[in-house]
């Protein structure tokens, strides 16, 4: 039952949410004076402390729920509140733990940027929105935060708004996310019309109140929202483009804030999804995981590879949700958050150096192209070490967090598939293939960046390439530590001992375990990673690349399945054409009607003016003219000559007489 008494854990959670908001307000108010980000960093640090306290108090305890009256529409009262359960406090801590090092890293990475004050403002807003989302206890508040997350990401992706590509990217991210938001909104509408409340607790405790078809529709609608936010195929197109933002922002988006929101939503509303919806989620996740890994194979932009990697891993999480094991999905979300954030921070450090060398020596190179890099392990050993750890975690190598979560996910998927029939049985095999592809693309990235030799323009200046500053290295080292197994389990090889899973699985009915798989799957993935590593070494480091780079499959991968082209042709261009048509209609028909009416009115007025001037005035003037003319004529009679008067008099009398004579005779 919700309380209204503000206990310490609730107070801590509330302050964890509101501190970044205060940071945002302060930064926004101070404007250009905010250069070193002290406000944002201290806000998120305090948030982290508060979140840790809330976590310690709530984890594995009874959920805490506080509710206040928000507003009333008609008879219906709406409430606002915080719901702290295991999922919420886990996400609360995760967001803060990821955000604080990213903030510190940003202080060095964004140093000297002319718009840095905006950067800190947006970053605080972003954190606030995400923290609000995870603790919200009703769908409306979640939706508000959901939109704020989207808006903040829009601002941050387009942070360098003078670059046209950044503007296009943030527009794309925003529009694609709108599609998902509509889904979320439809879901909220369905839930409200049947349940009469937006309270998440009520919804997930009694989802059967909704009629079965509507439950399916609502589930699909919520999933559509999660699809856009968590970049699921085919709505993933915004995420690779979102690389236009600063790398530190990418790391935040990919780790804990933006894309995690979709997975979190599905985990939060998990009881709402029935068999059908879960199957759709699992299928979409598998397709996404495969397609994104496939696209990642041939990319040359270091951040694009990581972006597709994120999409692929999000597909894994979706499968985790879809097979009914949302704790596994959340566990993978957490481990992924650490190693993906680290990957991005490392990539940021490398790009930072490349950019630095490029600017100091005026080289004409793309600082993000892995073909220009090579042999960097000698110049940036610490970056190499941390990135290696993150990559191994991504590939699911033993002794890393990624190993625990990914293998748990794979094993559970196999267990789930054993109960399924038809094509669903293929999903775990797809995931195994995807993990091979994952090993391939991430090791390809490592080989190209850290081994081999630098490309020509860089090789001359390689003495200028050195390690990133300490403020960037410390967050990287921190995440490297978090990517290893001790954070999650004392046993590096068995996911059964993970405290995080133990805390979440209490509410989930576990699948019948297949013991053998716990041995086979890890051996398989590790073995495959080893084989792939040998192949990569042979192909890329020794420079014996055997494949053609113009085959259909290669081009399909490199051009990301031509999806952008397809969207452009199928959706964007018709819409642009439609808007051109509407513009034409507006200009020619609507404006034409208005202008025509105006012209008609003007011509009517002109006619009226002509009538007024010529006819009305003419009549008046004619009267005047007649009087004047008559006066002119009769004036001549008035000469004063007496004899003339007589003559006139005589003539008049004569005329009268003659008239009488003529008439009378």
């Amino acid at each position, binding site marked *: 039952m919700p309380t209204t008494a503000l206990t310490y854990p609730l107070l801590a959670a509330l302050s964890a949410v509101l501190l970044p908001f205060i940071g945002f307000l302060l930064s926004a108010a101070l404007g250009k004076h905010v250069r070193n980000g002290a406000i944002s960093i201290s806000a998120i640090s305090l948030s982290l402390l508060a979140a840790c306290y809330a976590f310690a108090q709530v984890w594995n305890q009874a959920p805490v729920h506080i509710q206040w009256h928000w507003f009333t529409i008609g008879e219906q009262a709406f409430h606002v509140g915080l719901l702290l359960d295991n999922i919420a406090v886990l996400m609360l801590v995760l967001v803060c733990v990821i955000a604080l090092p990213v903030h510190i890293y940003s202080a060095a990475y964004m140093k000297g940027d002319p718009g840095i004050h905006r950067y800190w403002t947006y970053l605080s807003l972003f954190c606030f929105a995400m923290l609000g989302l995870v603790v919200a206890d009703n769908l409306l508040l979640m939706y508000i935060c959901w939109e704020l997350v989207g808006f903040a990401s829009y601002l941050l992706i387009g942070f360098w708004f003078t670059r046209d590509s950044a503007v296009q990217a943030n527009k794309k991210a925003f529009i694609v996310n709108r599609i998902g938001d509509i889904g979320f909104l439809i879901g909220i509408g369905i839930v409200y019309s049947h349940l009469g409340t937006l309270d998440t607790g009520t919804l997930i405790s009694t989802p059967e109140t909704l009629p079965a078809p509507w439950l399916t529709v609502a589930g699909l609608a919520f999933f559509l929202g999660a699809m856009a936010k968590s970049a699921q195929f085919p709505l993933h197109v915004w995420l690779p483009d979102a690389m236009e933002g600063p790398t530190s922002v990418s790391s935040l988006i990919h780790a804990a804030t933006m894309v995690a929101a979709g997975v979190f939503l599905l985990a939060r509303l998990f009881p709402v999804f029935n068999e059908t919806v879960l199957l759709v989620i699992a299928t979409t996740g598998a397709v996404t995981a495969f397609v994104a890994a496939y696209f990642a194979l041939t990319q040359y932009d270091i951040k694009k590879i990581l972006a597709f990697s994120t999409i692929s891993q999000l597909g894994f999480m979706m499968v985790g949700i879809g097979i009914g094991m949302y704790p596994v999905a959340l566990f993978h979300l957490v481990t992924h958050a650490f190693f993906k954030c680290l990957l991005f921070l490392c990539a940021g450090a490398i790009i930072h150096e490349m950019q630095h060398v490029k600017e100091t020596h005026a080289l004409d190179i793309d600082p993000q192209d892995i073909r220009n890099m090579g042999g960097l392990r000698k110049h940036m050993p610490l970056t190499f070490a941390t990135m290696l750890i993150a990559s191994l975690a991504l590939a699911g190598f033993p002794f890393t967090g990624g190993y625990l979560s990914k293998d748990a996910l794979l094993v559970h998927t196999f267990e789930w598939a054993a109960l399924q029939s038809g094509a669903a049985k293929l999903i775990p095999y797809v995931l195994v293939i995807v993990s091979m592809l994952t090993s391939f693309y991430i090791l390809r990235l490592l080989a190209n960046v850290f081994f081999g030799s630098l490309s020509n323009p860089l090789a001359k200046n390689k003495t200028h390439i050195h390690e990133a500053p300490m403020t960037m290295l410390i967050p990287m080292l921190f995440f490297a530590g978090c990517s290893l197994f001790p954070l999650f389990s004392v046993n590096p090889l068995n996911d059964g001992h993970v405290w995080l899973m133990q805390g979440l699985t209490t509410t989930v009915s576990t699948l019948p375990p297949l013991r053998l798989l716990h041995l086979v799957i890890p051996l398989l993935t590790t073995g495959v990673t080893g084989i792939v590593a040998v192949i990569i070494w042979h192909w890329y480091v020794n420079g014996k690349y055997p494949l053609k780079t113009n085959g259909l499959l290669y081009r399909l991968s490199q051009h990301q399945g031509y999806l952008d082209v397809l969207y452009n042709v199928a959706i964007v261009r018709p819409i642009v054409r439609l808007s051109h048509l509407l513009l034409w209609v507006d200009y020619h028909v609507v404006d034409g009607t208005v202008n025509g009416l105006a012209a008609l009115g003007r011509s009517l007025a002109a006619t009226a003016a002509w009538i007024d001037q010529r006819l009305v005035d003419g009549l008046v003037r004619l009267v005047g003219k007649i009087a004047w003319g008559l006066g002119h004529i009769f004036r001549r009679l008035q*000469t*004063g*000559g*007496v*004899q003339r008067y*007589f*003559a006139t008099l*005589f003539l008049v009398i004569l005329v009268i007489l003659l008239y009488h004579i003529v008439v009378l005779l």
Partner: protein
Amino acid sequence: MIPLTHFLVVGACLFAIGLYAVLARRNAILVLVGIELMINAAILNLVAFGRYDKTMYGGQVFALFAIVLAAAAVAVALAIILNVYKFYRSVNPEDIKNLKD
């Protein structure tokens, strides 16, 4: 017996001569003479038509009245002309066009 028409023709001639004098002469005295002529033409007509009233002599009496009145009018008119002449130093009706001083 002289027929009536002869009297009327003489009267008309007199009237025409008088009218001409009134309209055309440049001397106010002669204009006055023209007026007298026209009056006399009228008196001649009165006398001529008086033959049809042999009991009352209306025409003769009317003629006498008219002669007296004409004489009085001439006296007044001559006085006016004299004053006009004093004022304008002219008796030409063409020069006398202003009613004000």
